[in-house]
């Protein structure tokens, strides 16, 4: 089937057949999603047998829309973003047939939530510096270490994990990539309270956690390459859908502006409009990037978008507190809670101000993003590396 319309027609037929057999109104979500997976309609660009039909990636939104319009249930994408967006493509790329069979279906169906055990207190931007150790013991690995900034770890059944298996090799070469059972003995998830007062993330302590070698993804020592696949897929998700004008934090700030004419000054007015213009220009840059990479893979230019959105969010949220004057001195609630996801718009200005500080740190700091833009877009020389050919165990840490 090379005719695109014929392919779409065939997909329409498959979706209709599935909807006939499994009425979304009466089928429980997990059953529905298992059936969708088995019909190859989960990720149509995956191979047959693991949730797909081996079709073009561009057809995925078409299928998603058909299901959305039919009122199909959600598979918890807010909670399972790491599973759907990062673990699944990595398992597809590096998993054995057994691993693909075991993990992809429950992941898709939202039965198993995934988290990511990558960052450590000593390895944030320098991710290849992780020191969590995995030591071979027969058919198992015994893992010890501490991970940090782990979203949804307290809800997750599975994790993707990068650990050091050979400290005698340079840092990038001594890593291996595992699938970790979050319910295994020795896995201790503790809330990590942030400056907003809430614990949106966790710390995960791994003490003599046993991971079967069958749960290793990719070759021993090839963990960095596997992790790169994961991280590239993280970037793909950035800027995926068009956002409307005045959305996000800007929307919250303009509502505040319109609602508080008594606080207006000419100085604040000009600052607001500067930010509005900047946000709109950045939104258009995102639109253009989307047009440029339509169908293909976004490159390092996505780092540029992340830089501008982080800066604009921080300036806007700081501006909003000033605009509010006396009310800007108040905070909604310091009680420790563990939210499932970040909701900027549904919260007060003080929360927005504090949480936006993370925008220039999470998913790669703005400093690292600038290096990426400078080196990979503008072609300027790379940073001097003091740790390139030295065994990890000999590095000064």
């Amino acid at each position: 089937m090379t005719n695109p319309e014929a392919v779409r027609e065939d997909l329409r037929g498959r979706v209709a057949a599935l909807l006939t057999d499994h009425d979304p109104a009466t089928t429980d979500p997990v059953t529905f999603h298992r059936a969708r997976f088995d019909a190859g309609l989960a990720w149509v660009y995956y191979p047959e047998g693991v949730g797909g039909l081996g079709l073009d990636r561009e057809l995925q939104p078409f299928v998603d829309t058909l299901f959305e319009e039919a009122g199909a249930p959600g598979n918890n994408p807010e909670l399972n973003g790491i599973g759907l967006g990062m673990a699944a493509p990595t398992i597809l790329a590096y998993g054995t047939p057994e691993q693909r069979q075991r993990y992809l279906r429950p992941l898709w169906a939202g039965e198993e939530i995934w988290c990511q055990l990558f960052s450590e207190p000593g390895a944030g931007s320098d991710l290849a510096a992780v020191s969590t150790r995995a030591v071979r013991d027969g058919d198992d690995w015994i893992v010890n270490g501490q991970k940090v900034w782990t979203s949804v770890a307290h809800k997750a059944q599975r994790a993707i994990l990068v650990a050091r298996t050979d400290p005698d090799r340079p840092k990038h070469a001594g890593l291996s990539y595992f699938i970790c059972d979050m319910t295994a003995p020795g896995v201790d998830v503790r809330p990590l309270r942030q400056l907003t007062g809430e614990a949106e993330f966790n710390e995960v302590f791994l003490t003599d956690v046993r991971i079967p070698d069958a749960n290793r993804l990719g070759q021993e020592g090839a963990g960095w390459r596997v992790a790169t696949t994961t991280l590239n897929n993280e970037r793909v998700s950035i800027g995926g859908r068009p956002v409307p004008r005045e959305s996000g934090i800007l929307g919250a700030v303009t509502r505040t502006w319109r609602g508080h004419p008594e606080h207006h000054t000419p100085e604040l007015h000009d600052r607001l409009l500067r930010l509005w213009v900047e946000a709109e220009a950045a939104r258009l840059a995102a639109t253009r990037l989307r047009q440029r990479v339509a169908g293909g893979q976004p490159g390092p230019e996505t780092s540029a978008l992340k830089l501008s959105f982080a800066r604009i969010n921080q300036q806007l949220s700081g501006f909003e507190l000033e605009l509010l004057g006396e009310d800007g001195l108040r905070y909604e609630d310091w009680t420790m809670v563990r939210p499932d996801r970040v909701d900027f718009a549904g919260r007060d200005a003080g929360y927005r101000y504090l949480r936006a500080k993370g925008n220039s740190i999470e998913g790669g700091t703005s400093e690292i993003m600038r290096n990426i833009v400078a080196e990979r877009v503008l072609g300027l020389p790379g940073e001097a590396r003091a740790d390139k050919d030295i065994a990890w165990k000999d590095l000064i840490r």
Partner: protein
Amino acid sequence: MSEDILLLDTDVETALRAAVRSLLNERCDPAAVLAAYAGDRSLTRSLWKSITAELGLAGLLIPENRGGAGGSARDAAVVLEELGRFAAPVPFLTSSVIAATVLLAGDSELVAQLATGECTAALLAPFSAATVEQLPALVKDADGRLSGRVTSVAGAFEADVLLAAVRTPQGTEVHAIATALVTVDPVVSLDMTRPLADITVDAAPGRVVVPAGAGLPALRVGLATGAALLASEQVGVAAWCLDTTVRYLKVRRQFGRVVGGFQALKHRLADLYVELESASAAARYAAGALATADPDATIAGAVAAAYCGEIAVRAAEEAVQLHGGIGMTWEYPVHLYLKRAKADQIGLGSPAHHRSVLAGLVDLPLGRD
């Protein structure tokens, strides 16, 4: 907001860009541009001739049935971006964009003359004017002769005719006055690649080219189109500054290493790249909205005008700084771009003016008004 406006070059636009760039590469040498500061304006004459005769761009925005090339605002944006990259001293913005747009509202034969390049026009207004209220009105005497003085006019040296706003009891007319019949006093301008002149009109005959009923809207559209498309020239200026600075910092060595490898400089260039990407998307969106007469065109134009002027100045200022000593020299061309960028920022309304216009358009008023 129109998500379907293409913000990339079409194949036709890529070809147009290549043609303009190749001509400028060949005939717009920075040393010759610099000569404008010593009063040598020969480059302008030869270059404008090439652009009108060889590329046929003088009438780009004029429809084919009126003798022009029938191009769109997107095409004009591409041309302006390339002209900005070379700080090219030609009256494309003043004649082919602003004057042509104003003239299209009338049915004078001047349109066809402008389209072929046999005649070049300029709006009789300070280059800084952003609104029709800021256009100086000439006085019309009983014989219909016009008088008045207008300062800091751009494009006047190349113009065969000047377009003047003349207020009458019936409304504002646009008159064409032969430049030969007025006094043109050269001004020592901040940007000599778009030099200004003070114009004294003393009982000169004018002929109506846009009638009273259509005059005001025509002038308004001319200024707004000029401001929206000037953003593309500003993007071209900024792009040259970034490209040239990056190229220089890849070869300049200090402390035994390539200067562009220092993180402090890399980060500044990365920030500039990010801003330039935004500016270029904003300028393109404004041109695209104009080209399709999209209802969002006024907002798009205000955003582009408010943003791109600031970014061009920043890019030029960073270029001077990051070039170090050579950036301060007369010999090295970066100062040509600094002067063009700063003059452009003031031209056709400052960023602050365009932000205040935008405030009204997007319902972000100051206070309770």
